[in-house]
């Protein structure tokens, strides 16, 4: 069985371009940095106030004042710098990020995203998610295709409280890569271990299919 988190992370990494300045959310998005091809160097911003995030600090070599937004002790690459929250969100809202990658509770065919509040159950709060989604040039959602109950996370209209309206550009799941277009969500690639019929059955909205063979996601 495939490791879903690593699979999604690898396919997210394939969408990042050399020289991109990106913010990677906690969890699967952060894993994406491990799967970049040799030819691609990206610059990672952490909204708590660091640009030029390096790998996690080695045990015993942690700088206790230097964390990423997920509170992991990390390193800062040469040329990186730290700043306060005002500057950090100026970078974010100011349109200086090429991409942000974050998770979802729900995402819909209009590019609406819900990921900060599951009423009655879970209240992570928005943190920097609303700012990131509003400001980044590309908004990549990295999520499992279905909830633990098997319900689709990709739906016609989000029913959960929104994080932002219409800002999602690409969705990467364990089953497919979808691009948001004016006409709806377009299937860009499909996982090799699933049929088109299964994908459609597990998706809560209509998909625009490419002409001819559907390209396969990276395994």
């Amino acid at each position: 069985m495939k490791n879903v988190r690593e699979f999604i992370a690898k396919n997210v990494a394939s969408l990042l371009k050399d020289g991109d300045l990106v913010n990677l959310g906690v969890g699967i998005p952060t894993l994406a940095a491990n799967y970049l091809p040799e030819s691609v160097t990206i610059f990672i911003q952490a909204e708590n106030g660091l640009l030029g995030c390096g790998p996690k600090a080695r045990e015993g070599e942690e700088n206790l004042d230097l964390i990423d937004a997920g509170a992991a002790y990390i390193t800062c690459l040469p040329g990186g710098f730290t700043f306060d929250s005002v500057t950090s969100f100026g970078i974010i809202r100011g349109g200086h990020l090429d991409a942000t990658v974050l998770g979802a509770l729900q995402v819909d065919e209009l590019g609406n995203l819900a990921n900060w509040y599951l009423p009655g159950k879970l209240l992570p709060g928005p943190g920097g998610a609303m700012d990131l989604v509003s400001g980044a040039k590309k908004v990549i959602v990295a999520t499992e295709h279905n909830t633990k109950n098997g319900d689709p996370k990709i739906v016609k209209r989000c029913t959960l409280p929104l994080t932002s309206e219409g800002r999602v550009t690409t969705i990467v799941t364990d089953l497919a890569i979808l691009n948001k277009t004016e006409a709806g969500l377009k299937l860009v690639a499909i996982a090799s271990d699933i049929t088109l019929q299964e994908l459609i059955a597990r998706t809560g909205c209509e998909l625009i299919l490419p002409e001819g063979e559907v390209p396969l996601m990276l395994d």
Partner: protein
Amino acid sequence: MRQFRDGQSIMVGGFNKVGVPGTLVRWLEESGVKDITLIVNNCSNAEGSIWSPAAKMIKDGRVSHLKISYIATNSDVCALYEAHVLDIEIIPQGTLAERIRAGGCGIGGFLTTVGVGTMIAEGKQEITINGIKYVLEMPLAADLALVKASLADPMGNGLCFGTSKNFNPAMASAASYVMLETDRLVPVGEIGYEHVDVAGIYVDMVIPSAEEKA
């Protein structure tokens, strides 16, 4: 301790466990004050967290208004929000930072696309400029700011290592009375003038931190 009084609005710096004035947070809790408006980015209620005293105040009902961005690390806040027993204002992190900046800079409010079309925009004025919809966000200031710097001098100038700047410089500018906690007190002039993150002109009191870093 005399600086802590019932009914105050209090900002506390820090992001997760870094840049948090832990000793001041502990003193605040020990002072016994209540009816506090607490303004924080996050406030973990995990055992042993540097935020524990503040989390205890929230749990004990001594915080009457909470303005916060990231809640995942505090399960009590989630329950209190659902039960509607505590006035909680959830603020996107960048909007929180900018509102505090505005509060400290004499800016009467600002327009942002963050939150448009979401619960965050409810009850707020929306303004369209050149076809783009914005929410009007208002400045945020407080009676008291508890902030942290790695190094500080007796004039209140502070230097923040690593990612410990976060909300500290802005909060220091946006409160009537500012208490700065530092890991190391240094003589005036030791922090190079190009390296001051928290400006001493905002700071009213400097105290050495008694926290062990974890």
